[in-house]
């Protein structure tokens, strides 16, 4: 199948499906500046977050690498990084690392700009516009699907998701893998109870061991801390939607990843080491997961939902599919592909996979998703670390 899409060639060999200018906060203190710069620059997106200062050790590296990863995402043409000036995750450091992907990158700190915030916003707009003008000269060219890095996501799941939208996405994930592309499944707490099935799909013993160690290690942590995970997963909304146990939720959840062999596990902020299906270590909060998927290079994310979700991502378009007829009607403005005809008995999973494939190709070629139309640019960074601040309490 020699199918093609029209994308943007990056100098490092990667291919984008959007040509965005990322305006990145290095620290929470300048979020308002970043937002206002992004509002005024064509094709700019704000990357704002509540972190960037007072972080150390692995927590520091994780935040830093996520911000760098978002700037390096193939959908980003260039970036402007804004800092305050006194934080330890500096604008200079983020910019220096994004530049390694050979993109135009500018950076500055508010404390170095005479005139405070208004002057900094003005400066950011000038720098952003310069990059944006350059970006508009780049034209789309045809590429094959081996350049696609698909992020798999589900949110607000109900028990309809596992029998409709998730298996539809599973077919598309397998198709991307067959075309030589990459697909990434995150949210490991939604693999609990399906370890035996994932292990069977591991390409070798070492990958199988990694899957086992991750899941049993997590359950050991829970035991050590005396935390009862019943009541955390499935979530109250999942339970209302008919999902009773984590096993049931997980069986539906991993259907998104189809039947392809599992090439390996990657850390949050770590790029897949090759093509095919990969598992990313991330717990299960949708926005944290999609931030991570974009930071490791996903150029498109497909998100299934049952009860409905609005979430988007600043750099990777999020295409939403939903199998619940009530949600498709109530939240039509948030849903890209309505697959509720599966449970109405009108269409099969395979037929709807074809519908998703066609819609996805349009999105790859530039058609905006509902989350893009609504301007949703959600960012949350998973703080995956032991920190001296954890478990502080009065004694």
């Amino acid at each position: 199948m020699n199918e093609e899409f029209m994308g943007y060639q990056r100098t490092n060999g990667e291919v984008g499906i959007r040509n965005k200018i990322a305006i990145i906060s290095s620290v929470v203190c300048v979020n308002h500046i970043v937002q206002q710069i992004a509002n005024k620059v064509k094709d700019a997106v704000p990357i704002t977050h509540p972190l960037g200062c007072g972080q150390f050790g692995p927590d520091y590296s994780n935040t830093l690498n996520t911000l760098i990863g978002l700037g390096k995402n193939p959908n980003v043409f260039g970036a402007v990084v804004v800092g305050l000036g006194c934080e330890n995750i500096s604008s200079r450091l983020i910019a220096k690392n994004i530049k390694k992907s050979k993109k135009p990158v500018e950076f500055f700190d508010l404390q170095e700009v005479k005139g405070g915030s208004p002057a900094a916003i003005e400066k950011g707009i000038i720098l952003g516009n310069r990059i944006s003008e350059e970006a508009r000269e780049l034209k789309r060219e045809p590429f094959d699907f081996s350049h696609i890095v698909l992020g798999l996501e589900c949110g607000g799941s109900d028990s309809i998701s596992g029998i409709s939208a998730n298996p539809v996405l599973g077919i598309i994930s397998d198709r991307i893998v067959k075309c030589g592309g990459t697909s990434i499944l995150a949210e490991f707490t939604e693999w609990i109870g399906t370890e035996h099935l994932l292990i069977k799909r591991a390409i070798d013993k070492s990958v199988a061991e990694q899957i086992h160690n991750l899941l049993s290690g997590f359950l050991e942590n829970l035991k050590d801390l005396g935390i009862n995970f019943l009541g955390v997963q499935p979530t109250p909304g999942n339970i209302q939607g008919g999902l009773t146990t984590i096993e049931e939720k997980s069986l539906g959840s991993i259907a998104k990843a189809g039947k392809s062999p599992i090439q390996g596990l990657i850390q949050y902020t770590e790029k897949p080491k090759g093509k095919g299906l990969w598992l990313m270590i991330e717990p299960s909060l949708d926005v944290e997961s999609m931030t991570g998927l974009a930071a490791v290079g996903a150029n498109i994310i497909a998100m299934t939902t049952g009860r409905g979700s609005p979430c988007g991502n600043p750099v990777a378009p999020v295409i939403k599919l939903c199998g619940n007829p009530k949600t498709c009607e109530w939240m039509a403005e948030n849903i890209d592909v309505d697959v509720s005809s599966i449970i109405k008995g009108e269409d099969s999973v395979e037929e709807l996979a074809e519908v998703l494939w066609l819609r996805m190709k349009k999105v790859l070629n530039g058609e905006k998703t509902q989350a893009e139309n609504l301007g949703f640019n959600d960012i949350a960074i998973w703080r995956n670390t032991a920190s001296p601040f954890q478990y502080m309490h009065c004694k």
Partner: protein
Amino acid sequence: MLKQSKNYIIMNPDDNCATALEDISKNSQIQIRENSIIINYNIPLGHKIALEDIEKGDMVKKYGHTIGFATEDINKGDWIHTHNLTSQYLKEVVKT
């Protein structure tokens, strides 16, 4: 996967529960595997129906895999949810 023409779906022939594809009212009848089952509770869209009697401690199967065990006796036609089904996996590993 076959197209569904019923108001429930059974994901795997080994399953002992079905999933409601619309709200199914109490006392209505559904035809499953040549058997007629009377529904004992109002079952909302997406929720599970017992296809056979399931004894306390027995496994509940969906997608052809165990999704947990019954915490009380479940009758054919009953609604299966958190009041009578719990995770086997988390119960085994996390003893609280």
